[in-house]
């Protein structure tokens, strides 16, 4: 039973960190893709959307190759900072973040594209600098669209299985998240454990969806 709670807490920790990373990067990338004109923009959008359509195991394999101790990135991280991503919960965070990333930056891009340029002009004439305009006008107006994507991404990260298993493995108490624990329990024929884990997972998902409804209130903000 304790193992179930450990797995749940680990899942929440991994999904939480992945969502924080995606929130920051998703807003930045979504904004850049919506507002900046640069060569390779469409290609970048396509590459970043890949995690949505590629099998998670393939992504996990890429990450293994990229972050393993034998790759230049993995070796550099280990030699300079002593960081080892493989078979750690931090590696699971990276895997979950990448898998869920399209769910954040796509809606963010759409929300920024839908923005009303005139409101930004109004703020400019009122003397507000460009960074101030972003945080005071652009972001608040795009926020509801972004938030919807962020909550979906959190749910997606919570349920992440394939890439996480490839990168972080299934070490109980260390990298064994809820969804992996379910798989292990079924494999080991521990039906009771599996039942508990599945019920916990379902309950958590319902709570997340209810929270999503609460966090995006139907306040009238349209002009």
């Amino acid at each position, binding site marked *: 039973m304790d193992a179930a709670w450990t797995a749940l807490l680990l899942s929440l920790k991994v999904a939480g960190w992945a969502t924080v990373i995606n929130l920051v990067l998703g807003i930045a990338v979504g904004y850049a893709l919506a507002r900046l004109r640069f060569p390779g923009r469409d290609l970048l959008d396509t590459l970043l959307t890949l995690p949505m359509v590629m099998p998670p195991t393939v992504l996990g394999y890429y990450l293994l190759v990229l972050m393993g101790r034998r790759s230049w990135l993995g070796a550099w991280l280990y030699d300079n900072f002593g960081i080892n991503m493989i078979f750690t919960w931090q590696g699971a965070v990276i895997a979950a973040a990448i898998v869920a990333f399209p769910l954040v930056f796509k809606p963010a891009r759409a929300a920024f594209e839908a923005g009303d340029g005139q409101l930004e*002009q109004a703020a*400019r004439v*009122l*003397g507000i600098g460009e960074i101030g305009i972003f*945080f*005071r006008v652009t972001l608040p107006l795009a926020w509801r669209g972004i938030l919807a994507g962020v909550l979906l991404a959190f749910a997606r990260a919570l349920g992440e299985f394939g890439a996480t298993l490839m990168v972080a493995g299934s070490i109980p108490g260390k990298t064994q998240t809820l969804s992996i624990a379910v798989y292990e329990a079924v494999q080991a024929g521990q039906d009771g454990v599996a039942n508990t884990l599945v019920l916990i997972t379902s309950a958590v998902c319902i709570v997340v969806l209810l929270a999503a409804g609460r966090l995006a209130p139907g306040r009238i*903000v349209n*002009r």
Partner: protein
Amino acid sequence: MQFDIDIRKTLRSGQRSFHLNAQLRSDSSRIVIIGPSGSGKSLTLKAVAGLIEPDSGHIRVGGNTLFDARSGIDLAAQARNVAYLFQDYALFPHLNVRQNVGFGLARGWFNPRNSASHAAVDYWLDAFHLAAVAHQFPCELSGGQRQRVALARALVSRPQALLLDEPFAALDPALRVIMRSELDALQRRLQVPMILITHDPEDARVFGDQVLQLREGAIEIGAVALETAALAA
């Protein structure tokens, strides 16, 4: 010289191109530019506000050079201290009336708190009879109230000039008459120089100490029109 504007700008969209060539020198503090839509009125006004950059020429307001292509001066919109009233007011939909009015007074990265008190904001809320709706959002306001909020927001930072883009076009006819006289009285009281662009001759009659016509990007009739327009009133 109150306004000294001499700008050229070419816009291209596919095969079509539009040439703006606007000259205006005036000591009047009430200027109306009248012309049909697509004649370049908004473009001229936006150039003065610093929202678009002319290809060449200069813009001086009250003796301050805001733009001069030859000497490479191009003040950012933020630094021009002119107020711009957008045609549909461009009120921030996520901020209440008080926050909208105080928007320009709060510098930095954060919006004013929704009950933040500021003497200048209170003054303008009172002056425009908006105190009762100070906590409402723009979508909850009537057309006249929206315009008053936009005006209060524009005036609260004591601009050196007021630029009005079709200020009455979004109002119904009865309200238009009321708001016109309100703005008229306000401008006389504050003595803030203004340029108003419109396609409505009635606006020109009420406000035009000097009326200029803009057609297909070029200003046609200069100061001559002001006498007749004033007499017609």
